[in-house]
């Protein structure tokens, strides 16, 4: 208990360092944007290659997830999220909801017997 309290106290001490201490430069944001733009261009080009099945949708989904992580991590600052007791609070709040949303997606498909039929 005392150890946990010490953890919280330590986390409090560092929380704002993690939250506000790191200020990415303007150049950093432009680089992230350039990567996002390139990924979008590759996505569109990939969709025009005339591929079908897994070779079409898997790379597209990978690039989509990469863009998602870049925006959430860099622009929404989750990479610099506040750490409390070895956990990143906002990241976990968001990730848990996201997992729940993905579960909803699969439950809907399973319920309507479309994908798994």
């Amino acid at each position: 208990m005392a150890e946990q309290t010490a953890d919280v106290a330590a986390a409090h001490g560092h929380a704002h360092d993690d939250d506000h201490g790191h200020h990415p430069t303007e150049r950093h944001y432009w680089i992230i944007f350039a990567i996002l733009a390139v990924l979008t261009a590759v996505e569109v080009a990939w969709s025009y290659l005339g591929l079908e099945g897994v070779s079409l949708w898997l790379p597209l989904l990978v690039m989509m997830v990469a863009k998602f992580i870049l925006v959430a991590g860099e622009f929404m600052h989750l990479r610099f999220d506040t750490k409390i007791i070895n956990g990143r609070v906002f990241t976990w709040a968001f990730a848990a909801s996201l997992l729940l949303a993905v579960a909803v997606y699969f439950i809907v498909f399973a319920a309507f017997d479309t994908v798994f039929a």
Partner: protein
Amino acid sequence: MTDIADSATDVVDDVASADDHAPADHGHDDHGGHHTSLGLSNMKLAMWLFLGSECLLFGALISTFLLSKARFITELVAGNPRVIESIPAGLAEEFIEAGTVEPIYDIPFTSGSSFILLMSSLTMVLAHKAVSEDDDLQTKIWLGATALLGSTFMAGQVYEFTVFYREGIEYGTSLYGSAFYTLTGFHGAHVTGGILMLLSLLVLAFRGKLKSNRAETVELVGLYWHFVDIVWVLIFTIVYLIP
């Protein structure tokens, strides 16, 4: 419309004023955030939880869209007369021949829209950086640019809806139309809400009331805006690029 914008400005102004009148024992950091017992900003935590609930909303909408599209195409190809009659004959033939609804999409146009929304995320984060550094001019420029880019995206969506409607895809007549307009329409409504928030911040900036002690207010609007961008990243790939 002006009334709505004024009301939104008042709400943002109230939130910002609340920062100014916070109890002294809570204290502030230099970015307007409250020091709480765990070192977390309650407003930021509330925003993240709200965005979490939005994940569920859009997860359900995307699932429904995919399910409806699959059912629509299956029935169309199988020759179900009710589904075939729900869209113009020429369009039905194109869809059946392609085996997807892809022929109706204008991918280069939508790619342009996606790029614009992606760029607005950059300008938003630059606006937050500018307000944190008390750079009034840059704050106004980047907030204005974000609102402008968001409005351009919305104009593109209105144009796309108009094209779809003229092609014969209506909201109430076909399963595909209902699912498409509901999903993209909900996203568009979120973008519109974000634009109103940005305009409210811009009004505050021009009144000289948006300083670094209110950076968290800008950050909260930014979180919402980036989330709307993230949802479009998903919609663009899942709805437009994957047949």
